[in-house]
């Protein structure tokens, strides 16, 4: 009986491992194929995409980098950093205000902002474009930053609110006794204790903002302001695309987020766990 049970678990175990490894292959195999082809010439890739390159064309990566990837990176970093900062700041303030004070209409405000989660960017696209033009913001970085902040606040506030509710009130009560005002309580107690949720909100939003395409495509025109997703599209020429360089560009552009995640995955998961819905 016990033997049977052990054998059964062992079989289960093997099957499970095989299954999970198979999925790993499905994810990684196309990527490896792309890496392989990014090291060939266009002709080689076209004639046989499975063959090994005759000569490893690492120069493709240099060419891709030289095509302005650096500037797209810079733009993405600037736009993301400012957006993330304000998303976190405004959302945490909102969550704090909504969880720590009995505001008249607080529930209404909560639902109003939460409703923003269901509203898609497309619906706002045309008017936003006209509004940004009227505000003279079209084709500036702010044209991206402001909508990014606004559209990311609802989800972020939602995550933070759950976390803030779970913070024991006693901590703040002690601070009140010490004579801290609400702002001091916010900056000295709530924010430090919320680091995990702030971190995971930052990563979720960073991923969104870093990869955003629709707004960037419509609100920017200047090549010098383009972010990575947009810049990558310029690799696709009209009558001529340098495919291998394009592949190299895609791979370079994808790397930072992946590396960031791999380095921080522990903190990320912990933060998400702590701040998960119904924390």
């Amino acid at each position: 009986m016990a033997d049977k049970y052990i054998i059964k678990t062992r079989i289960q175990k093997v099957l499970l491992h095989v299954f999970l490894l198979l999925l790993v292959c499905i994810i990684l195999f196309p990527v490896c194929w792309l890496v392989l082809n990014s090291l060939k010439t266009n002709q080689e890739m076209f004639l046989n995409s499975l063959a090994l390159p005759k000569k490893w064309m690492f120069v493709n990566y240099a060419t891709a980098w030289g095509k302005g990837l650096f500037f797209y990176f810079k733009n993405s970093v600037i736009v993301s950093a400012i957006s993330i900062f304000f998303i976190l700041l405004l959302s945490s303030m909102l969550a704090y205000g909504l969880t720590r004070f009995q505001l008249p209409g607080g529930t209404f405000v909560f639902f109003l902002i939460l409703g923003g989660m269901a509203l898609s960017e497309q619906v706002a696209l045309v008017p936003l474009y006209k509004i940004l033009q009227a505000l003279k913001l079209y084709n500036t970085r702010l044209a991206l930053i402001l909508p990014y902040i606004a559209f990311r606040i609802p989800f972020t506030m939602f995550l933070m609110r759950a976390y803030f509710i779970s913070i024991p009130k006693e901590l703040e009560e002690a601070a009140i006794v010490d004579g801290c005002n609400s702002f001091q309580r916010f900056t000295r107690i709530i924010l430090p204790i919320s680091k995990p949720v702030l971190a995971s909100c930052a990563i979720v939003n960073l991923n969104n903002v870093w990869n955003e395409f629709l707004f960037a495509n419509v609100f920017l025109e200047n090549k010098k302001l383009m972010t990575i997703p947009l810049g990558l599209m310029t690799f696709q020429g009209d009558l001529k695309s340098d495919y291998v360089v394009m592949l190299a560009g895609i791979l370079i552009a994808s790397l930072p987020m992946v590396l960031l995640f791999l380095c921080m995955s522990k903190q990320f998961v912990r933060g998400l766990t702590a701040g998960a819905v119904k924390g």
Partner: protein
Amino acid sequence: MKKKKNLAPYAYVIPGLLMVLGFVYIPIIVNLVYSFFRLSSYSASMKFVGLDNFRRLFTNETFPIMIRNNVYYCVISLICQVGFGTFLAFMLESNLIGDRFKTVCRNIYFIPALVSLTAVGMMFNFIYNPQMGLLNTMLKHFGFVSLQQTWLGDRNLAIFCIIAMSQWQFTGYITLLMVVAFQNVSRDYIEAAVIDGAGPVRRAWNIVLPLAKEQLLVCSIITVIGAFKLFTEVYSTTVGGPGNSSQVLGLFLYQNAFLHDDMGMAAATGVLIFIITVTASIFQLKVSHSGEV
């Protein structure tokens, strides 16, 4: 002094609220207004046309195709990303596999979600390419030449190719979110559910899932909303082709606004997307009986 104290709480709420109102709600209301006008991006004139934009939208030959494609995307994503993703999370949380292996798998599954949509679109353009793409080359290599397809160039396959690409990208994302939710559920429940020979599936269904219900709800809402605002995936691969076979609402909106100078039609499409996503969200909230969120 006293007055100042009363105002303080508002100071926390107002900046964020104004941002959301200014850049989310106002544009959406303006969009509603636009949907009753004919206007173009480069001309200043606006002409009131009543419901004509909606009539043109609903009678457009592409309309049923778009709805069909968005619904396909939505249903398949729910099954694969939310359904299979949750199942996968469940497998990962079972104690049959080591922690290290589990973390590695989980992280690898999540990686595609970190790559930008345009990059993934461009990558899959290569994978689906009929001449040198991975799929056809592999088929040829293993002697299944007759199974070779045009993939993105095939009317009947194009939208499914795009959907498959999204599943590749986002299943791991949902898996990670669900892993997180399961970790909040007491470990005992999961172990009990996995080990016990007598219907582990049923136990999981009955015990663990209800505990992670909130997270599941959020995941499915995100997925449904995502399905109806689908844009970049199509824009970076087929741009609606071949013919109109992979046209979707989001792309239709974009093309009308910025290619056909028909901002009114675009706005009407926007209103439709708005109605669908909001209805779907409210519906799911109701079904889950968790109005309090």
